[in-house]
């Protein structure tokens, strides 16, 4: 490199959150550099199940999720690409009366908080929405206006649009050190040093080290949620389905293949970027899928994979300013459910960085919750 590249904002990490924040910051007129050690969307952002889901979220996440959903419903306006987004119900299936009661309580809680997007469906309605569901399933909780998208195409579209707005991407560039020099941030990488007025940590499973260099404690754990895809099947499912009592994420893609995930984890190795499947665990996902959809007994798996993702101990992300430094920010640790949040969190981070404040309710996501007393 000749000279030191400079920008108003340096984003560490080219996943969906990094690309989204970069895009929104560029829209606000900031100059932005994104530094990514692999390629954009290489990890959790590119290989997740693609669920665009408000359903079943942690209560603290619901307002941001609802805001994000509004963006998803007109995603083409933002990134000039439909991201493969399909509107369809997200349904959490209850296999027992006790499970249905849990879901009813949740729906009531949400109504009290002022949110009406999650509704209880009875057995008859469940069967109407999911004709192939097993007879023992008694009902469910549904968010009818959710959907799914194609993860890699989405991240790629955000990157492309960000680039079109002038964001510079440095891929295959590993951040080694972030340090403060006067008012500016110096980011030392495998391709030299970058300078920025602001710093945003979107490094996913690798974000803990950046936080550490800022003097902050972020007990992030690398996890590798596993997924399976089957050969094409005749269309039988027009919703994204989850389990209530057993972890599951289940949907049939446009081309007929079925994508099954949910909770089961392989072995991640963030040092080498590799993850390994753990079929002794994945078998439970297979069992659950067949349990809820008996038609899956004859399905054939053609592929399985696991992406590396960062998980926080309380399963909600870190979103907000650094607690130790001015002009440093975090958005990481989405704990395997950050995909739907990407569009809104990027918008919130850009607002926060450009103006110094946001009205979004991000207090529960402060990094200070892990500060050692």
């Amino acid at each position, binding site marked *: 490199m000749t000279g030191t590249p400079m920008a108003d904002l340096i984003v560490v990490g080219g996943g969906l959150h990094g690309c989204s924040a970069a895009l929104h910051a560029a829209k606000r007129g900031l100059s932005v550099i994104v530094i990514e050690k692999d390629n954009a969307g290489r990890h959790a952002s590119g290989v997740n199940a693609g669920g665009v889901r408000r359903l079943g979220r942690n209560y603290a996440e619901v307002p941001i999720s609802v805001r994000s959903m509004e963006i998803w419903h007109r995603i083409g306006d933002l990134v000039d690409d439909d991201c493969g987004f399909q509107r369809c119900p997200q349904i959490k299936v209850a296999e027992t009366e006790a499970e249905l009661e849990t879901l009813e309580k949740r729906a009531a809680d949400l109504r009290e908080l002022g949110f009406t997007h999650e509704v209880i469906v009875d057995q008859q309605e469940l069967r109407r929405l999911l004709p192939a569901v097993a007879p023992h399933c008694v009902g469910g909780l549904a968010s009818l206006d959710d959907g799914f998208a194609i993860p890699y*195409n989405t991240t790629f579209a955000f990157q492309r649009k960000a680039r079109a707005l002038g964001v510079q991407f440095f891929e295959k560039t590993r951040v080694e050190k972030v340090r403060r020099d006067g008012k500016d941030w110096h980011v030392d990488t495998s391709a030299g040093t970058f300078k920025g007025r602001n710093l945003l940590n979107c490094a996913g499973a690798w974000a803990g080290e950046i936080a550490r260099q800022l003097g902050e404690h972020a007990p992030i754990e690398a996890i590798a949620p596993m997924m399976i895809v089957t050969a094409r099947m005749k269309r039988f499912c027009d919703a994204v389905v989850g389990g209530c009592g057993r972890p599951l994420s289940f949907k049939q893609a446009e081309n007929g293949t079925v994508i099954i995930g949910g909770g089961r984890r392989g072995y991640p190795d963030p040092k080498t970027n590799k993850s390994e499947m753990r079929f002794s665990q994945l078998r439970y996902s297979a069992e659950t899928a067949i349990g809820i959809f008996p038609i899956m007994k004859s399905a054939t798996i053609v592929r399985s994979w696991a992406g590396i993702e960062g998980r926080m101990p309380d399963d909600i992300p870190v979103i907000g300013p650094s607690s130790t430094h001015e002009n440093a920010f975090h958005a990481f640790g989405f704990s395997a459910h950050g995909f739907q949040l990407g569009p809104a969190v990027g918008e919130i981070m850009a607002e926060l960085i450009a103006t110094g404040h946001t009205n979004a309710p991000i207090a529960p996501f402060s990094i200070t919750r892990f500060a050692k007393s």
Partner: protein
Amino acid sequence: MSATTKNRYDVAIIGAGPAGMAAAVEVTRAGLSAIVLDEQPAPGGQIYRGIETSDEKRTKVLGPDYAAGRDIAKAFRACSAEYLPGATVWNIDSALGIDVSLGQGSKHIQAGAIVVATGAIERPTPMPGWTLPGVTTAGALQILLKANGVVSDDVVFVGSGPLLSLIAAQMLKAGVKPRAIVETVPQSRYVAALKHLPAALGAASYLVKGLAMMLSLRRAGVPIYRDATGIRIEGNGKAEAVTFTSGGKSHRLETTSVALHQGIVPNQQVTRLLRCDHEWNKSQHCFVPKVDEYFETTMADVYVAGDGAGIGGAVAARLRGRLAGLRIAEKAGRGNAQERRSVTDALMREAKIRPLLETLYAPSPEILAPADETLVCRCEEVTAGDIRKAVDLGAPGPNQVKSFLRSGMGPCQGRMCGLAVSEIIASRRGEPISEIGYYRIRPPLKPLLLSELAALESEEAVPADLADESAAVH
């Protein structure tokens, strides 16, 4: 040999072709326990397929090189290795645990060392019309000949490589005359290959055999069209004709059966799954796993014998299998350095013919750069143009193209399109293919029933944190 009874073996060998069989004989001779897992119902691999049941007539048609497999199979049957036919390996983990499907259920086997002897596959040959019914690979045609003695009577062979004339000559012996051979080798290659001729004389028997085959084809009057370009397979719903240009003239051969071939390349699914390092072999124009002189990969205790380590042919495969076996024995303290040296010497003699063959029969430029509308990934119906478009949008390599277009995500896991996709990306980006790389390969290696996975024997219980994770919808 006995049916499988154990879950732990000193050596697991995947594939019962010449390399796998030879490795099994060698390691059991040294007193190690071994299991051989093979998808086929009987030993032999593709090259010696059906060798134990082939009658005199069929063996004569297939020739003495094929008949040589008999002794190898006999020695394999006599050794103490456990042999599991009809077994599909669908996963191998980094601790050398192997998941194998036996049709009804899956079995988990723990190995101390693995010999990958999964051989070669035919190079993908994307060209107009290659997906029409009636079009097969030349190898598939030969399998029919070996397994069932079946031959088709109006075949037009299209492509490049010694296998084309071999199969055509075998068909003649079986009493069926192929319609024609449409060879894509440009004239200039003969000139380029000439400089390798002196070295090839060190393996003169191959040259003699090659000449004899050509002679028999000429005597029988099988038309051979040379330096063919602009090849298209035409037809409405099925193959009806092959059109091409040769000798400055356009030709149209009507046929319902077309056999394509552009040489063979290592079957790298297992070594890719295990994340062994691979390198681009310029001469063979394909990726090969990096191996040391004993065919051990960059992953300790994982060996690749046979054509999987780079194309060397059946004789070399057998020698490589022996060498890998001898090395494994040596590591276990049962070495025989003298024998190892003699096998290495024989391998070097065997390799002398390769530069000539590889120069002469390099893949045709047409299949390396198919036209935009040509299908490349057959499973997901992705064209060369789709791939170029994804590259133009910024996809830097095969894995991003895969994520974008689903190419290589179908049931064949990229076997049929992998090399072609890497080639197209490399040329579109103007970067060397060694930099572009290849698909990451994920398990299962072969399609697996979901119910079979659900029934997988597991010693691991459901972890408590996951069992409680009722809200897990990703």
